[in-house]
Structure formats: C-alpha cells, structure tokens
C-alpha cells in the first residue's frame, strides 16, 4: 500500500486539530464511527450569521487515512456556506487523497462527520429560533 | 587436478550467478511479504517482480503464477487441487505425478504419448477428467506433443496439466500456444536454487481459469492457493534465473551440437550403442544411451572416479537398483535398460566437458572389451 504525498502531509501535519465548545449555539458537532470498529471522528463547525463556516476543528481516532480525510474536510468546509459544505462527497475526498480501495470507508466516515456536524448545527438553530418565537 | 565435470543437469543444474545475487540481496535484508511495514512491502515488491519474470519465461501473465516449495509440490497441487476425480497420466511421468495414481496413458517405443489411445480413453468415459503429461521427459529428453494432447483432452472436456519442469528454460515454452490448464515449474532445474517452484494456471481466479483449490490451509498467502510464508530468497533467485534462462534460450539450443558430438563419437566407438528417442523431438541437452554389456551402476561409479557426474536415471529414485520406469514403458529390453546412463548438459557446459566424457566412455568401454576378450580367451 503506497500512500499519496497529500495524504501523508495531512497525516503528519494535520490541519485544524482541536475542539470548539459544543455547547455554543453557533457550533455544530458531528461524532461518527465507533471505537470497536477502529475509527471515531469528531468534527465541529462554527457558523457565522451569514451561514458561512468560519472555523472547523476535528479530532480523530483511526488510521492515517481517517486522520487525513478529516483534516482535509476541515480545510474544505472553511469559508463555505452550510449548504455548500453538505455537497462534499466522499468520492471527492478519496480522489484528492488517492485513497487505496481498502481505505474508502475513511472518506465515507468523513462525509458522514460533516453531515452530522451540519445536522447538529441546524437542529440547534431551529430550536433556538423556536425558542425566540 | 582437473575440475569435476558435471553432466547431470537434469537432476539439478548449477545455480546461475544472477540467481545467487538475487537471493543474496534478500538474505542480507529482512521482511515478511505479508507484513505491512516497509520491509514487508519491499519483500512483496521483490516477489511480484519475480512473478512477472517467471510469467515472461513461459509467455504467461503474472496473475497465473502460484509459488510453491518446488516442482513436486506444484505437481501435487495441480493433481489434487484441480478437483477432478478421474486422472489420466502418461506412463513416463515423474514419480510425483505417477505415484498419485490414475489411469496410464501408454507411450510408444520412443516414449511419445499415444494420441489415439488417449482419445479412446477419454471417449468411453465422460467423468470430468484431468490429463497430466509432461512437456519434456527427464530421462530421455523426449518432447511430448502437448498441443495435440490439449486439443484431444479439451474436446472431451478434460483439463490438462503439463509438468514442464524439465522443459522450461531449455526450450521455448508458450502458455498461450500450448493451451494447457495447469503447468508446473521448478527453480533449481533452470538455474535457481532448490526450494522454490511454481504452478502456472492460465486465467487463475477468473471464469476462464480452472477452479484450483489449495491443499495447505492457513495464512492466505498466494491468494489461498498456496499458504505459508514464501521462500522469498528462493523466489527472487527463481525470477533472476527465469530472466537469464529466457535470454539464454538460443545458447541453450546450441547445446544440441555438443550432445550430438557425444552421440556421434560414441557411436563410432561402439556401433552397438543404443540412443533412446534419438529420432524424435528431444531436449537439446539430454542423451540417454547404453554401453552394451556394462551396468549403468558400474558406469556411474567409474565415471565418478574419473571425475564426471552422470546419472543412471532420475535422481529421485534414489539410486535403488531397479530399471527405469520410463524405459520399461518404452518397452526397452532389460539388457538395454540396465546398461543405460543419462548425460544432461547445462547452461555452463563446454566442449571440453564433452571431450572428457567421451574419452572416459571410450576408456571404460575398452576395459569391458578387454574383459570380454580375456573371458573368451580363458
């Protein structure tokens, strides 16, 4: 198994590692995977008033491909609107990192993570607007 | 002292320097081809390169190559792993095929498979069968008509296994042209080291290939067709030997001149000498010939004392004093079969080796003549 330079770069110098306060209203948190399966991704987005993702952070328990996939998506979602971010597909991630076939599931997990973070953000927002009404 | 003249290359040939070098580079490194770390991946790369080289030697593709511990295991794997219960084997096969049992396909006085007989055998029984015939015989060097055998067998829905252990590296072998379903190779017969061999199964793993099943279990190496940590150095040497053998094929063909020189000289010395399979297609390096009136065992001992290594038959029959099954199948008289030695030249044989052998032969034969003379005088 030969890994691409991009993948190795994201693994060795992961971008946006860290955590945001998950209790804040403008933060969406996605936690996907399971320890027993060998992969857990936590991906968080911070969305500004215009619906643009101004910050993203991740933490990942998993193989190099899982770490690189999550690092890559945090880079990609920054500056995008929530709707644009939800367009990100696992195939894009797999292609960008040249993931070997046995590692495609890592890109799927990263896609799930971003979707879960957006869903969390949206549900927070709707409950907040309901509360405001 | 003169260097020992080795003329038993069909038993095992001198390891080629390329093969030694390839094996050495593995011995001085470390790595299990199944490990995922760098040494493991390097080991796998070496293995896959060798696989390609071996495929190229027989004009096959790398995916068709399954590495084994040698020719005998490859033959066993083909016979048992192909899943056919009915088996037909030629009467001149190597013991690793013959001892597995099966119906015998007869050969003519030259040791060539009787094609009509094979056709009949397959005609009257439609149990899915495997036909196993060697490409070239280890004792006589006879080349069997594999293409015809394949045509007949396939017409009757039978698979064909071809033991090409003695042929590969000596004559061109073309997987596609010959059309068989399984083929065995051995490293140490082409200038690699003993301990490595291969089964070639065209289309293995695809719908067109035969449905091979491994006989050893556990580990999953070689896609499960042959498990166990691979003999990496042996495989690397096998690959290098295959490359060298392929580029040396035209030189090997020239050995026929040396072989013919031996036979011509000996027939001049002793016109009664019988050379088996002389008039049919043979390997360029092999001569199976009699010294009338002198036992093969006596000959090999005398030659060894004279610093020449030849054999009285196949190395695997372990020197037991019995006549060769191959010659028996060819209906050779007991007397002729008893007085036979096999001379087999190799990639490093020289004209001077031939001279040494012919001289020793002349000397031994004349001792017999004088013995005979003395006896009749007495």
């Amino acid at each position: 198994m030969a890994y691409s330079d991009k993948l190795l770069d994201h693994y060795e110098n992961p971008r946006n590692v860290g955590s945001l306060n998950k209790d804040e209203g403008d933060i969406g948190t996605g936690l996907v995977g399971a320890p027993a399966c060998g992969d857990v991704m936590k991906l968080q987005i911070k969305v500004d008033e215009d619906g643009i993702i101004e910050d993203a952070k991740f933490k990942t328990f998993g193989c190099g491909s899982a770490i690189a996939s999550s690092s890559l998506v945090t880079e990609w979602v920054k500056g995008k609107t929530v709707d644009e971010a939800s367009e990100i597909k696992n195939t894009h991630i797999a292609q960008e990192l040249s993931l070997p076939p046995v590692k495609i599931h890592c890109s799927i997990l990263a896609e799930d993570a971003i979707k879960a973070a957006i869903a969390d953000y949206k549900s927070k927002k709707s409950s907040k607007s309901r509360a405001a009404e | 002292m003169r260097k020992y003249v080795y003329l038993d290359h069909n038993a095992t040939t001198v390891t080629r320097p390329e093969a030694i070098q390839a094996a050495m580079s593995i011995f001085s490194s470390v790595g299990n081809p199944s490990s995922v770390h760098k040494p493991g991946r390097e080991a796998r790369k070496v293995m896959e390169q060798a696989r390609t080289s071996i495929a190229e030697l027989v004009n096959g593709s790398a995916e068709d190559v399954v590495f084994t511990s040698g020719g005998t295991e490859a033959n066993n794997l083909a016979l048992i792993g192909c899943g056919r219960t009915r088996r037909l084997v030629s009467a001149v096969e190597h013991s690793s095929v013959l001892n597995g049992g099966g119906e015998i396909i007869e050969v003519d006085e030259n040791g060539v498979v009787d094609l009509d007989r094979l056709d009949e055998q397959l005609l009257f029984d439609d149990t899915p069968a495997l036909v196993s015939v060697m490409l070239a015989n280890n004792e006589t060097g006879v080349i069997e008509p594999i293409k015809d055998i394949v045509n007949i067998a396939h017409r009757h829905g039978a698979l064909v296994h071809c033991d090409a252990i003695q042929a590969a590296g000596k004559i061109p072998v073309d997987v596609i042209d010959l059309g068989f379903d399984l083929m065995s190779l051995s490293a140490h017969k082409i200038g690699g080291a003993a301990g490595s061999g291969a089964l070639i199964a065209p289309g293995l793993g695809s719908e067109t290939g035969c449905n091979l099943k491994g006989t050893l279990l556990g580990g999953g190496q070689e896609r499960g067709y042959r498990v166990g940590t691979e003999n990496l150095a042996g495989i690397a040497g096998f690959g290098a030997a295959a490359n060298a053998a392929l580029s040396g094929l035209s030189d090997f063909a020239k050995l026929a001149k040396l072989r013919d020189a031996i036979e011509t000289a000996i027939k001049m010395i002793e016109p009664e000498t019988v050379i088996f399979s002389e008039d049919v297609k043979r390997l360029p390096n092999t001569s199976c010939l009699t010294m009338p009136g002198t036992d093969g065992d006596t000959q090999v001992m005398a030659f060894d004392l004279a610093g020449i290594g030849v054999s009285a038959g196949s190395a695997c029959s372990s020197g037991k004093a019995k006549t060769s099954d191959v010659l028996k199948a060819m209906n050779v008289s007991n007397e002729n079969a008893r007085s036979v030695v096999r001379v087999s030249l190799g990639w490093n044989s020289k004209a001077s080796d031939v001279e040494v052998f012919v001289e020793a032969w002349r000397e031994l034969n004349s001792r017999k003549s004088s013995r005979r003379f003395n006896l009749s005088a007495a």
Partner: protein
Amino acid sequence: MSMTKGNWSKDTPLYLDYQATTPMDPRVLEKMLPFFSERFGNPHSRTHQIGWDAESAVEVARAQVASLIGATHKEIIFTSGATESNNLALNGVGRFYKDKRNHIITCVTEHKCVLDTCRHLEQDGFEITYMPVQQNGLINLQELDAAITDNTLMVSIMAVNNEIGVIQPIKEIGALCRKKGAFFHTDAAQAVGKIPLDVDDMNIDLMSISGHKLYGPMGIGALYVRRRPRVRIVAMINGGGQERGMRSGTLPTPLCVGLGEACELSEREMGVETERLKMMRERFYTKINERLDEVFLNGDLEQRIPGNLNISFAYVEGEGLMMGVNDLAVSSGSACTSASLEPSYVLRALGVEEELAHTSLRIGFGRFTTQEEVDYAVEKIANEVTRLRAMSPLWEMAQEGIDIKSIEWADH
C-alpha cells in the same frame, strides 16, 4: 533531544518485528553460500560425489535440528516451513488414525494454519474442541484434562503464541496427553531456539519448526515425528519418496544447511541471548510506562518469550500509530492477517475489548536489537502516541471523565 539511530540507516526502518520474520544470521548465510555455487548438488543424486556431498550436508543439518530439541536425526522431516509442518502434522496423523479415534483438541489462539486445518478436518468427520484461554493467554490445564477423552487422537497446542509471545505449559500438557494416550503436537515455530525444548522430557510427539523465525532462511522448516513409540502420518506431498516417504520433493540443500546452522547457533547461545533480550524488554517496558499512561500489556508477563511485547496504547488506533512510527518496523496484529486489519482474534480471545484490541502494537526484539534502538523506539512511540492522543476524540473524552462505553456508538 538528539536521537541517533545507531547501526541502522534512515532508508531501512528499525526492525522490531522479530515474530513476523527474523533477519538471517550472517553466520548462517556463510554456511549456506557454498551450497549455492560449487556445492550445488541434488542431495538425492546417488551416482556422483556432487550429490553425495549435498546429501551429507543435509544429514549434518538434520542432526543439528534434532539436537536442539533433544530428538534423533531420524525423527526430523524437512518441509517448506511451519505452515506445511502444521498441515502435515494434523492432516497426516488425522488421516492415518481416523478409524481409531477422531477427536482433536486445539486452542482458539493457535496460528491460522492450525485453525484452518482443524476446520477442514471437522468437515471430514473429526470432532474438534477449541480450548479457550485465560486472560493471560494461557490455557487452563484442568479444563484441558477434562476435555481429553478416550476418543482424543491428538492435542495440538502451540508452544509460544506469535502475537503475544506467551509460553504454554508444554511439559504439563505433554504429561496429560501421555497419561490419556493422545498424541501431542505443538506448533513451536515461535519457540524453537528461544526457549529450551526437549521432546522426551516434554512428551512431545510432533513438533513444527520454522527456519525464518530463528535467524535461518525462509522456505524451510521441519516436522519432528516421534519414532518411539512410533507416530505414523500420511504424506501430503507425494513423489520421489524423499524424507522416508513422508514428504517428497528435492530437498533444498542450502536451506537445510541454513536451518541446521541456525539451530546450532541457537542451542549454543540461547542462555546468553535470553538474558540480553530480557534486559531489552524490561528497558522498553519500563521506559514506555514512564513516558505514557494507560498502557496495557497483553498476555502474561512472566510466561513469555523474552523478545516479545504486545501493548495496547489506549485511545490511539494501532494502524494510525504504525504510520506515525514508520521508521520502525513493528506490527499491529499478526503479519499473516494484517492485510485485513481486523482486530486480532488472539487479543479478542484473551478478553481484550475491541477498542483496546484496535490500539495494540506487537514489538519484537531479537538477536540484533541494540539498547540504542530500544531507546530510540521508546522515544519515537511515546512521542507519536502523545501526538495522536492529542488529536483523539476518545482521549479527550477520557480526560473529561466521560466513559466511552456510556456513549451509544453507531455500528458501521
């Protein structure tokens, strides 16, 4: 701090995977070399001195193998490796005695080739008992005693486990087998040359040996088959009748010579080497525990070969860790199954939870491991574990006092 890598260079990773395969000892190679070139003969050629020379070298090697395990040379059959030896032992005995007894006992942590062969025998009408292991990886002798019946043909228990390095109570198992009249086969691929073994003292009837696990070459192994009282086996590879009919095929002279020499070296140096490796292992284990919390050893510490550690670094996934320490050649799970990267079945059998099984590394020390290398490896692993924990959501939760078991994880 500055870290030198001692006598290994940057482009060859530091090798700490001695249970997958061992580098060949240069002294072994030296003995083998002539048999590749001027002494190239076929050991079964009985008609000339080139063949006799090869044959006598093979017989010397056979005696060297026998000596290491207290056997006689006639009880050693050369094979292509331990996988073949294990297949031959189980199938060979099974097929010969099938009509007399058809129960075989083995253990859940055996090598794949033993387990797969047992499953195959099961389909052929054998009854197989798969013994569990205790938390330390060792089988329970009382349970084994209870499992052996009048119908038990053979007990096959490995001497040393390839993943966790634990040593099974071989002598006690041998005694139980002898008492009950069952054959005792042991896969000793990881044990031969590492711990003292004596087939008579331990009542072993069949023993599988591998060349490349004891500084010999790949592609060669042996099966010990007891002659008194005689154990009969049916051959799996037929042909020229070599190895007294039990295993046909031209013997690879250089490889046989290599295995023989490797055995002799091990026999001579085992004592010193054991002490040295114990020190290495202790140094590694102590230092790694000084550097890191939540480090768990898998398998018994005492009943263990000196060259093995199997450690779970909680909250850090093993494969990801391997990528970070890629100038170390270590293994996560057994080499034979690592292509699949499933959590190790051996660790699962010990009751190690799946999440911890995913965090394990096997670190193998051997003849050529230096103290400097051990220190480098500790630093490297400790740094990388620390880095990866900092980006592990599970570590974060643990620090916050969240029990990860309390979370409902999705299956995937």
